[in-house]
């Protein structure tokens, strides 16, 4: 008999939709092409999965956020999306539900479809724009046009979706500072509530990594990437956006609550193949194979697990710092120590470390809350690393 585990208030639900029309050059998420029939079956499996998981969790008053990520969630038939949302409400309750996001690629959304999603409760749209130059979009393997972006934004407005995020990428081989500035300006012209600006990173196994390895493409010079990031921070600040995370900017009050829960190291349940879940010290993913996923759920078997780890309180606390330091407001070390029940020693190690880093100007530290200084945002790994492992460094 399983014990019912409580979920920490503020928890979120993530639904992974692993469908794409084509694979982008830099993407290492689990996704593939699928027929409409397959997509509907997949949605049915997700619904069944949510239902079977119900009795394992005490979700108190239900999730605060739901996020449809992918892949391309906008490829899911809207009525299937609505059915999934219905199941979540039914299983966990919706008293606290305040943010439901769907990711979409320009060229995959229409006004009527979006309206259906909105009727199902979706109130936030995240649009993968990436760039405004056809040659850069082509390099990235994006299939949409600049016109598709405008149409998607219009569709969102028609559907009453005002909380819109745009993703942009900098550091693309061949991207100039002018390209980047133009992308930022055109993005701002679309009046989004939120902007994510991501540095292009060649993940192992992606075509991009392969091209680089074989010398088929150059890299964006590091100095230019740094300038691009600084330029984005400057322009977005001028436009009234606040940076609240290393790569995320929002108009006041429009921060992504679902993602904030990750950076606060909150609990979340993921559904769908390859989706990750975390409850307390346990984190796991469902196997990254949608056929296996659908098969298991239609035959009543347990959904196979991909990866699973049970963290020690110390490692979990280190993660809380690693994640918390991504936020511009930083993380309260004393609260982390308290939450994960760590001893004095860890506290004094972190205190010593934070004091040293503060002395070097790499963090701000007031004795309990530590946050990166803007100068160290782009070299944050060098700092995060120091909070991992037991011994503090000098």
């Amino acid at each position, binding site marked *: 008999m399983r014990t019912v585990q409580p979920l920490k208030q503020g928890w979120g639900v*993530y639904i992974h939709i692993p469908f794409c029309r084509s694979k982008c050059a830099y993407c290492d*998420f689990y996704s593939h092409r699928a027929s409409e029939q397959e997509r509907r079956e997949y949605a049915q499996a997700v619904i069944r999965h949510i239902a079977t998981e119900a009795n394992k969790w005490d979700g108190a008053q239900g999730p605060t956020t739901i996020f449809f990520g992918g892949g391309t969630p906008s490829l899911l038939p809207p009525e299937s999306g609505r059915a999934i949302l219905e199941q979540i409400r039914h299983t966990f309750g919706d008293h606290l539900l305040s943010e439901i996001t769907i990711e979409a690629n320009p060229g995959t959304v229409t006004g009527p479809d979006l309206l259906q999603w909105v009727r199902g409760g979706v109130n936030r749209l995240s649009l993968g724009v990436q760039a405004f130059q056809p040659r850069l979009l082509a390099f990235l393997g994006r299939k949409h046009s600049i016109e598709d972006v405008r149409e998607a934004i219009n569709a969102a407005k028609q559907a009453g979706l005002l909380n819109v995020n745009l993703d942009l990428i900098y550091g693309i081989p061949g991207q100039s500072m002018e390209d980047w500035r133009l992308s930022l300006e055109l993005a701002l012209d679309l009046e989004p509530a939120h902007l994510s600006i*991501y*540095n*292009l*990173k060649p993940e192992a196994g992606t075509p991009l990594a392969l091209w680089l390895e074989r010398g088929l493409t150059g890299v964006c010079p*590091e*100095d230019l*990437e*740094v300038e691009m990031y600084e330029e984005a921070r400057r322009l977005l600040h001028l436009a009234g956006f606040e940076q609240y995370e*290393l*790569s995320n900017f929002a108009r006041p009050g429009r921060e992504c609550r679902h*993602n904030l829960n*990750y*950076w606060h190291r909150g609990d*979340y349940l*993921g559904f769908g193949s*390859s*989706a*990750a879940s*975390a409850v307390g010290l346990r*984190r796991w*993913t469902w196997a990254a194979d949608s056929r296996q996923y659908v098969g298991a759920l239609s035959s009543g078997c347990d959904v196979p697990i991909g*990866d699973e*780890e049970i963290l020690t309180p110390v*490692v979990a606390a*280190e*993660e809380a710092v*690693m*994640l918390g330091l*991504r936020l511009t407001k930083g993380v309260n070390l004393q609260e982390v120590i308290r939450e994960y029940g760590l001893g004095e020693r860890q506290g004094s190690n972190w205190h010593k470390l934070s004091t040293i880093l503060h002395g*070097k100007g*790499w963090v701000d530290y007031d004795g309990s809350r530590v946050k990166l200084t803007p100068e160290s*945002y*782009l*070299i*944050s*790994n*060098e700092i*995060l*690393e*120091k909070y*991992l*492992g037991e011994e503090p*460094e*000098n």
Partner: protein
Amino acid sequence: MGMAQANIRNFCIIAHIDHGKSTLADRILEYTGALTAREMEDQVLDSMDLERERGITIKLQAVRLQYKAKDGQTYTLNLIDTPGHVDFTYEVSRSLAACEGALLIVDAAQGIEAQTLANVYLALENDLEIIPVINKIDLPSAEPERVKQEIEDVIGLDASDAVLASAKSGIGIEEVLEAIVKKIPAPKGEPEEPLQCLIFDSFYDIYKGAISYVRVVQGSVKKGSKIQMMSTGRTFEVTEVGVFAPAPRQVQELSTGEVGFIVASIKNVKDTRVGDTITNADRPAAEPLAGYRQVTPMVYCGLYPVEGADYEDLRDALDKLRLNDASLIYEPETSVALGFGFRCGFLGLLHMEIIQERLEREFDLDLITTAPNVIYRVNQTDGEVVLVDNPTKLPPNQKIESIEEPYVKASIMVPSDYVGAVMELCQEKRGLFTNMDYITNQRVMLVYELPLAEIIFDFFDQLKSRTKGYASLDYELIGYRASELVKLDILLNGDLIDAFSIIVHRDRAYHRGRALAEKLRDLIPRQMFEVPIQAVIGNKVIARETIKAIRKNVLAKCYGGDISRKRKLLEKQKEGKKRMKQVGSVEIPQEAFMAVLSIDQ
């Protein structure tokens, strides 16, 4: 002389690396039934992993074999292994002293090499009977007749009845065994005389204590015997005597002429000093055996734990290695940059690398090795002579009258096509030409006098690469000579890093300083701030480089599905830095401390 003693043959094998010594030893073991082919792990004699990987023999091993010869009699053969590298000439001399004969293995295609020659001369000095064996005769490029001629011309040995063999294909093994039985004399010595045992190696076993590998020169020893170490006078009771066949096996007695081991609950390995003579406590021999020439380390370097806390572990590990390697010497030293560590003396560069690798592998230590140097002799203005085994200990300039450095006579054997290349190299390394001999039409022996410092720098690597691996080198110390030497220092971020200091010839200082600064710029990863590098002689900066600051090291994204992976990424990054040494505020990778060795490439 008893029947048993008359049928003992003690021999070793002299061969250049790759000429097939281990394979021949294996075949002999197999042929005599000491091991079946199936139970034989390849190349039994090279038991350390490192030896097997590098294809060289470092530590001596002794194996007893039984061979039924064609004359119908059964002989006891003791094969005492010898190392084949120039660093270990000392160990070779040890095994030679325990034998009456030696197999000289020469590759049928390659001919005699410089190192082989040196060892043959050692064997001749020890009055050993030498049996030439021409190996690899089934190679298409084999020229046994030419190699025979070479043996006669170069060494002056009669090679007319040299054994033609191919250890790999099992050709000539019986002939080798017959030659051992017929040509190598039985050991002399009287079993009734007071005991004289030569310790030719010792080994520490945590259960049994120090185990001595011995050759009984006269008398006999058995379990219960009271023995005495002639150099220290300390006495012990023998708890076990035995032989390696090749697994250790207890025997009743080791008598005159025999080779085996003695266990006597000896707690301190210092009591089983290699070269010492063991005798009877109650009936001691009048004289100890000749022993060995004292070994002198030629190469010194600093060994430091990456983690300061590992200092005691490093000391323990060195103590343990020294139990089996008397040629290793070390004493504590302190570096401003690296903290507490040891100055270690080695027989040569290979010896140094082997010790370093054994410390890392067998004792799981992360080490920083500083660039190796020789011992300098400094004549001070006040008339005092100071020996300097560490560049940082060089007296201040105004106190130096002159500096002398060790010189070696280097013999290089090389195909005639490469003579020009080798001469050029020797010139670059400040060599003085002494002699050139055509051994055959195609093979030349070049003799140069070279500073030892240049040999340990990168001479061997350069020699190999410029002659496509065909040259072989032997060298011996010939004394100290005055040279124009200066100390070159490196400053990182304005701080002098003592572990980078080297002593160089004045004419090379500028070039090496600049090359070293460039090399360090490439080897030291970027830090969170800019790090200037300066190469300095005295107060004069001769080269300047800059390691730029890291500008970007960030995880662009970190969402729910990424957290584990990103945490592991950071952990890996941190792990990578653990292998670096924090000096001041700069993190320096281990290889940077050896950078100077590769700057001329």
